[in-house]
């Protein structure tokens, strides 16, 4: 399967990335290679094999409905690139992509 520029643009939009000019061709070629590599898996016969989702056999791992506050307000905000004393701050987002 060949990756089209259109596909790259759609993926870039979903990932909030931008590729123009040379960068566009480079990422498009890289994606081509990645997909080609993954396509080798098509050679494996998976007839009757259940997809593997979980790494353990555990089921029903539930917790009781009990409140526990693990971190402080200050700790919560510590790693934020932009913040004030109350809030995380982000560049203004207009409701456009939810």
């Amino acid at each position, binding site marked *: 399967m060949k990756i089209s520029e259109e596909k790259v643009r*759609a993926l870039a*939009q*979903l*990932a*909030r990335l931008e590729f123009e000019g040379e960068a566009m061709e480079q990422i498009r070629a890289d994606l081509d290679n990645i997909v080609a590599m993954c396509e080798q898996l098509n050679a494996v016969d998976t007839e009757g094999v259940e*997809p593997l*989702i*979980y*790494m*353990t056999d*555990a*089921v*029903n*791992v*539930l*917790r*009781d*409905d*009990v*409140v*526990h*506050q*693990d*971190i402080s*307000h200050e700790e*919560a*905000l510590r790693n934020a690139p*932009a913040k*004030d004393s*109350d*809030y*995380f*701050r*982000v*560049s*203004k*987002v*207009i*409701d*456009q*992509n*939810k």
Partner: protein
Amino acid sequence: MSVAYEAVIGLEIHVQLITQSKAFCADSTAYGALPNTQVSPISLGHPGTLPRHNRSAVDYALKMGLALGCNITKENHYSRKNYFYADLPKGYQITQFNTPICEGGGVNIRLKDGSRKTVQLIRIHMEEDTGKSMHDQDPRDSLIDYNRAGTPLIEVVTAPDIRTGEEAYAFVTEIRRLVRYLDICDGNMEEGSLRCDANVSIRPIGTSTFGTKVEVKNMNSISNVRRAIDHEIERQRGILDAGGAVAGETRGFNALNGTTFSMRSKEMVNDYRYFPEPDLPPLILSDQYIAAVHKLMPELPETLFNRFTAELGLSEYDAGVLTDDKATAAYFLEVVKHTANYKSAANWVTVHIRGYLNEHAVGIDDFPLSGKRIADLIALIDSGQVSNSAAAQKLFPAMISHDGKSPLELAESLNLLQTGDADLIESIADEVLASLPQKVEEYRQGKTGLLGLFVGETMKRSKGKADPRKVNEVLLKKLGA
């Protein structure tokens, strides 16, 4: 010539569950806390954290499904719904995509004209809420509060069965009543604990294909759901009548002027790239587990409604008012434990007690009199010892301000007891008839409607203390003689 259209409406209702802690971590879900104080590495989406599902959230979702007659999914998996938005710190929402915990089922609604309808459900699935963004507090930045991030939700999705704003109104009302009965959500639309989106399209009556659908959001009260849908139907009709085409888009509702406005077009189709959530092991619900949850459920409003109308012989109106909320229904049930006069019990609860509650702006939980006391009052009226009007106007208020005294004691001290004393009634009746010889003559000529006059006059002369049924009886006997 204009075409007749019908609307095709499906609703998506997000129900915020009133668990103590969040869906997948132990942060509190309390409303109104200082921003970003009820968060954790899990709800903030830090790498390397592992979610664990809240058992109560599962139980609440189950209760909703059982109440609505859904098929319960035994093997549940979770999925990631991927999108970027600042109020979603992980970059994906944990939801149930392929295996909603409930499928099918339906909600029975009653409409104003007395007709009934069942709105079929497609599914109910469990998911988590996002944080809250504020766009208008700062000129440059949006401010984000993650206290709500990860709060458990269920989303109820209906089939496109709804045809009018009124039906949507009845549906959301029923859902709100039910979640309150089940005690799984506070049902507060203004605070966003219950949120409703509507998919609205119209088509010429008689056709079976769907028109272009518009998603309407921002309806923060049940009456706004009706207003927004009614407006949207008219808007689409106007476009089609003018030869135009409805654009598929998301529109918001402006409650100030009752119109909808375009929020965003759907040209850019979302691609959520759902895939299985490997961090949460499957949830397997055994028949025993489901049965155990079922046992914890209260009697549902519809069951109560049917019982009140069929077994107790109440009117649909009374049954509707009594089952409007669980506390009122419980109070009524307490009254009828002690009296067999169901009609009178309904009347006391729906008229006098509700009147008192409205006047004092309190809930029935704060009403000072027990159901037993009201039943005692009814017994006092039924035995003819106190008249209805004396009970409503004097005795009932006195009982409220002198809680602890029995209705009989109070009626005695207020001098409200009626006399069944036949001699006294006879002598007053004789007086009355003697004072109105002409009316008595007319009565005997066949103008029997005059009986009310004699009864009223006798009651008046007894200062309201004569038992009206006895008065009636005595007068009939005398007039017949």
